[in-house]
């Protein structure tokens, strides 16, 4: 069955207001007291059994955060967040130190099963149902503030790859963490990143040693379950000289009337000749059809092409969240390094998206490429905000940017805010932008050929985002395609 048809099949089974990941898991959980203070920071650090240097690092961030103002420059509008009215730590009551998957609370495993995430590596390893040639994916699952399970640890260890919850890495590989944590996104970087530095509870840590090509895709699934709980995960990925790693993250949350806060930080470091490919399918709860509820997503993601000939590629499919504030960026420090940003940002209902990238060219002959596809439907607002800059020493810097926006209906908005700064004459930057509407004529052409209205929209949109979808790893591309059509459910007719 062609993917488009399958997509629409799925859409049909879903009500307009139905977010398919909107269930809640009832498990006992342990929370820090509500509100944020030095005590909260100490509580989290203690829960994680952290060494003293880590606590100091957090406290310094917290003190700095208290002096900072929430940024207001993005084109998003939301009621003021009361940071004292949130829980900053929630963990499933069971001990997080688990010897095997069998010790994970079965309720949590059920949740991940519902989400379609293959945590049970033994079943996958048994290979009974695995189709020929399908690649395996190692998964780290983060439930509220705690990583509950990481699969394929043994096999990765053989290859020398470290893939574990960052809370464990702090204890087991303190030298690596000390060296790299905060080296790309410093604790002072911005309001949300600083908050994250103070209270982050878990996330994934990846280290790929020199010359190693990571034998499988690495993946993390994030799930916010608890009410009134912020999720602050921290991801740190290091590709040493000549290493390669492809990493995927997926995010979902239950359907709730109140807003949930998510402020993550992701840091990538690529040394000489290394390559990191980072893909995201973000599907946090977007709120209902009246704009009530949904996740506030304030994320700082940055990659540092530290070595010569290094490469970092971001691919994102953003369909969820009530508010998205997210600019995965590349610092092109090493000569001949390359940064890429491929993005599909879809907004429907009352969603507000302000997303884009920064390509900072510092090294010689650095190149970057930005392909952004924004799709706005319903009453949503969708903004692309991007910066391309060339330092005066970045001789021969090259950038190509293409920003395309597609509007569905006449109550939504698409905005493009590109900043371009070239401080040397040899830089060559190209920028293309288009805005279009799905026209009645195109839809009628499709339905005249037998497609339903929804199939027609799905087909046109999938055509519009094709260049970006091709950048996703296969198993994610199919999922993303389905997600796109589901997100646009109810946008026509």
């Amino acid at each position, binding site marked *: *069955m*062609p993917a*488009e*048809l399958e997509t629409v099949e799925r859409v049909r089974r879903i009500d307009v207001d139905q977010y398919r990941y909107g269930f809640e898991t009832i498990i006992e959980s342990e929370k820090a007291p509500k509100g944020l203070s030095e005590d909260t920071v100490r509580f989290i650090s203690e829960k994680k059994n952290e060494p003293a240097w880590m606590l100091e690092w957090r406290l310094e961030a917290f003190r700095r955060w208290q002096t900072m103002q929430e940024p207001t420059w993005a084109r998003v509008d939301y009621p003021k967040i009361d940071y004292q009215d949130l829980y900053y730590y929630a963990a499933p009551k069971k001990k997080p130190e688990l010897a095997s998957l069998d010790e994970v609370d079965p309720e949590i495993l059920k949740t991940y099963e519902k989400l379609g995430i293959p945590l049970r590596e033994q079943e996958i390893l048994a290979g009974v149902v695995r189709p020929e040639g399908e690649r395996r994916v190692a998964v780290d699952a983060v439930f509220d503030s705690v990583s509950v399970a990481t699969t394929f640890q043994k096999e990765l260890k053989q290859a020398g790859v470290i893939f574990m919850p960052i809370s464990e890495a702090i204890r087991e590989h303190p030298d690596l963490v000390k060296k790299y944590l905060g080296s790309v996104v410093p604790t002072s970087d911005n309001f949300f990143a600083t908050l994250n530095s103070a209270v982050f509870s878990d996330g994934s840590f990846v280290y790929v040693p020199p010359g190693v090509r990571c034998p499988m895709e690495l993946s993390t699934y994030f799930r916010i379950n608890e009410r009134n709980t912020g999720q602050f995960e921290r991801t740190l990925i290091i590709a040493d000289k000549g290493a390669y790693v492809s990493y995927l993250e997926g995010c979902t949350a239950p359907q709730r009337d109140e807003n949930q806060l998510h402020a993550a930080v992701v840091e990538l470091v690529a040394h000489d000749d290394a390559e990191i490919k980072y893909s995201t399918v973000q599907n946090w709860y977007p709120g209902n059809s009246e704009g009530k509820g949904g996740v506030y997503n304030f994320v700082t993601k940055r990659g540092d092409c530290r070595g010569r000939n290094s490469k970092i590629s971001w691919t994102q499919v953003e369909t969820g969240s009530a508010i998205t504030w997210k600019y995965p960026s590349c610092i092109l420090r090493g000569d001949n390094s390359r940064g890429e940003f491929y993005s599909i940002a879809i907004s429907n209902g009352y969603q507000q998206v302000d997303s884009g990238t920064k390509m900072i060219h510092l090294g010689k002959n650095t190149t970057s490429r930005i392909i952004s596809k924004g799709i706005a439907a319903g009453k949503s607002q969708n903004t692309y905000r991007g910066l391309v800059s060339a330092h005066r020493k970045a001789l021969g810097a090259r950038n190509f940017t293409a920003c395309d926006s597609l509007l569905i209906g006449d109550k939504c908005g698409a905005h493009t805010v590109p900043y371009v700064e070239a401080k040397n004459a040899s830089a060559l930057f190209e920028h293309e932008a288009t805005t279009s509407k799905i*026209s*009645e*004529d*195109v839809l*009628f*052409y*499709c*339905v*005249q*050929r*037998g*497609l*339903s*209205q929804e*199939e027609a929209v799905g*087909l*046109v949109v*999938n*055509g*519009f*985002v*094709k*260049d970006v979808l091709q950048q996703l790893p296969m198993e994610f591309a199919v999922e993303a395609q389905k997600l796109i059509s589901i997100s646009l459910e109810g946008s026509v007719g």
Partner: protein
Amino acid sequence: MSALLEVKNLQVRVEDREILHGLSLTVNKGEVHAIMGPNGSGKSTLSHVIAGKPGYEVTGGEILFKGEDLLEMSPDERAAKGVFLAFQYPVEIPGVATMTFLRTALNAQRKARGETELSTPDFLKKVREVAASLNIPQDMLRRGVNVGFSGGEKKRNEVLQMALFQPSLCILDEMDSGLDIDALRIAADGVNALRSSDRAMVVITHYQRLLNYIVPDYVHVMSKGRVVKSGGKELALELEESGYAQFEEQAA
């Protein structure tokens, strides 16, 4: 035996203006009807209303297709029932490969009719056969639907879809517009190959020229939202001589 298409006293409005004022037309299986008339006579409106394009309000009359009330059906249901409109200006759909579009559409129609979907090898075989007969290179099928196609290629793509879907009623809206003689001949040959006793065609055109290639059984002249004269194929030649002016007065 009932007619394939029966349009009875059809009245259609666009916004506040009545475009068709009681139009009637009967088309039987196996017949080719030409509808001629000047700009603004309502030819394209008729084709759009039959295919179900939004924006038209039917204020009176009815359309029966295979004895069923066509106006009750959504446009995709009409397509599955066998109504095909070859567009005057086929649209471009960037990023959607022609091949993907053809398969999605064909399978949607088959599914609506309760038939099984065509397997990939069967589908490819079928498309290649039809494409070859229309001089459509494989490369064109891999490109986005109509993206960067010449006028002739776009029209050939319409005929390709007609051949693939095998509809029982083909409406060709101004098929000759924007085509040079060679392109017209290829497209018309494709259409003629699809003439059969099971299928009817309604050919809408300004000019008699097209009817040299697709020879109709009946010719209807439209003026100001009505059929003002019907006859055999010789009526088209007569029009070529005398023009539409005589009918304009008659209709008014």
